[in-house]
């Protein structure tokens, strides 16, 4: 985990130095200043130091939890990100819930002879649709067409539903594909006959046994997907004009606000590591095979 975060910070630090142009221009905005003032600013921000010194300084501060100061907003990057973290986490959390429910529903219903091709088609379309387009279609249909949801509101639970659904649909498609495949694979295993022979009902078989087998790979995948939700939130927040990390990232990239971009890179790496850890723990609990492996170990 430390390795991933360090690697990301290092790659990001040096890659972002490749940005052409003088960071001082970003710092002063549109104003015109003398060379003297420029040199002073460069001195103050530590931009005059050798690259290696800057890098080590950044790492040193990073270890203490200091992400630096935004060029554009002149406030700590941790504050800039912190303020916008809540709406994005709400959005992503609800999207994960939606995605899992949708995937579970479609995987459980879509395994009959008639429903399987339909589920396959729906999954394919869900996976293939661009996130921002799904958002626009949902707004047209449910916002403007039926008037069920507010179109531009940013507060309240109602305003969260459409964006979360938008973010959830492509992810649900992928998870559903894997879950259905997993259920099919598990249904072919010998233990299924044993369970049946003991007189277990079909529901009990699926819920207690095959679903547990199939769930592990889907949960690993969900962890991976959370990362891509962060990328998707940039688009969804733009479509729905919501505040959040995605917007912060986009603005920082357009403004070339290097410390903020770097802060988001580090945050993404931390999130990736933490989620992977959680996913491994949960998958161990759910999949019976991993359990026995541990019991014998």
């Amino acid at each position, binding site marked *: 985990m430390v*390795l*991933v975060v360090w*690697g*990301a910070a290092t*790659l*990001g630090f040096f*890659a*972002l130095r*490749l*940005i*052409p142009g003088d960071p001082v221009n970003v710092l002063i905005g549109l104003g015109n200043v003398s060379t003297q003032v420029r040199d002073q600013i460069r001195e103050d921000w530590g931009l005059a130091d050798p690259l290696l010194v800057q890098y080590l300084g950044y790492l040193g501060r990073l270890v203490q939890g200091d992400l630096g100061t935004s060029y554009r907003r002149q406030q700590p990057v941790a504050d800039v990100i912190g303020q916008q973290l809540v709406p994005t986490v709400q959005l992503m959390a609800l999207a994960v819930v939606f995605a899992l429910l949708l995937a579970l529903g479609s995987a459980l219903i879509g395994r009959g002879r008639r429903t399987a*091709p339909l589920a396959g088609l729906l999954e*394919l*379309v869900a*996976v*293939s*649709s*661009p*996130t*921002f*387009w799904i958002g*626009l*279609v949902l*707004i*047209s249909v449910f*916002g*403007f067409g039926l008037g069920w949801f507010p*179109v531009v509101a940013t507060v309240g639970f109602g305003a969260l539903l459409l964006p979360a659904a938008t973010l959830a649909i492509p992810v649900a498609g*992928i998870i559903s*594909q*894997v879950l259905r*495949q997993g259920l*099919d*694979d598990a249904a072919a295993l010998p233990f299924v006959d044993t369970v049946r022979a003991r007189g277990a009902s079909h529901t009990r078989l699926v819920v207690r046994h095959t679903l547990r087998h199939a769930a592990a790979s889907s949960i690993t*995948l969900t962890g*991976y*997907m959370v*990362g*891509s*939700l*962060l*990328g*998707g939130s*940039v*688009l969804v927040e*733009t*479509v729905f004009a919501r505040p959040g990390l995605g917007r912060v*990232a*986009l603005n*920082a*990239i*357009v403004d*070339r606000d290097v410390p903020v*971009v770097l802060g*988001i*890179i580090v945050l*993404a*790496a931390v999130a*990736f*590591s933490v989620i992977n850890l959680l996913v491994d723990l949960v998958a161990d609990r759910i999949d019976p095979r991993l359990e026995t492996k541990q019991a014998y170990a």
Partner: protein
Amino acid sequence: MSVLVAVRSRRVKRMPAPALWAAAGFLVLLVVSALLPGVFTAADPLRTDIGEALLAPGPGHPFGTDQTGRDVFARVIYGSRYSLAIGFGATLIALVVGLVIGSFAGLMRSLGDGVLSRAIEIVMAFPEFLLALIVIAIIGPGEASLLVAVALAVIPSYARVARVQTLVVKRAGYVEAARTLGVSPAVTVLRHVLPNTLGPLLVMATMGVGTAITAAAGLSFLGLGPKPPTPEWGLILSEGRNFLASAWWIAVFPGLVITATVVSTSILGRHLQARSARRQR
């Protein structure tokens, strides 16, 4: 990401033939519209006519018109050029570079492989879209940037598959045989290892074209791609966003075409995958 998942799952169901034909047909139409847009529409994608602004889809304007009276159908047809160029271009770059990096890592012993694999792993911790955004931050927005950004964002995935595949192929009997027969290492790699590594990557790339098109459209939707009034799909969508209340067709049709494109490439990719899986058995 969907690409990876598909490549990993072992049992692949065959695609029904009608779906396959429909997908191939759609892609052919798309390529024709990119090369010869005049075949499909006589309208000029850039000609504005305020008198005809925001017309609903109907005869004359199958996809309606936008806020300045431009024909949305013509814009979508002419837009296929940009999207296909970026989709195929970025995928080709990612495929070649990924293959080189991946097989390099796979062929090298311990240290080189370790460093490269770690680097790939770290970059893969990032969602592809975020990677593309960061690349744009470095090289600045624009059409060429889209291509480079999308390509760079997916290179790690290709490199990883290429590395694993190289490790498998390296131990195959025919490579051993070639070596025993005294074929030089360079020739062995070029004649035996690379061609056999390429297969799974080509399947991945077929599906990757669709993903690349979506990613590029997303970036240009955010205003990081070509400038208006270029008829690029993502850009048309972002313009349509402001007129959703009165003119849903501006945003809905280009998105529908993107979705159809990605669905088609996925169907073709899965077909290829199912075929290569059968051949291996």
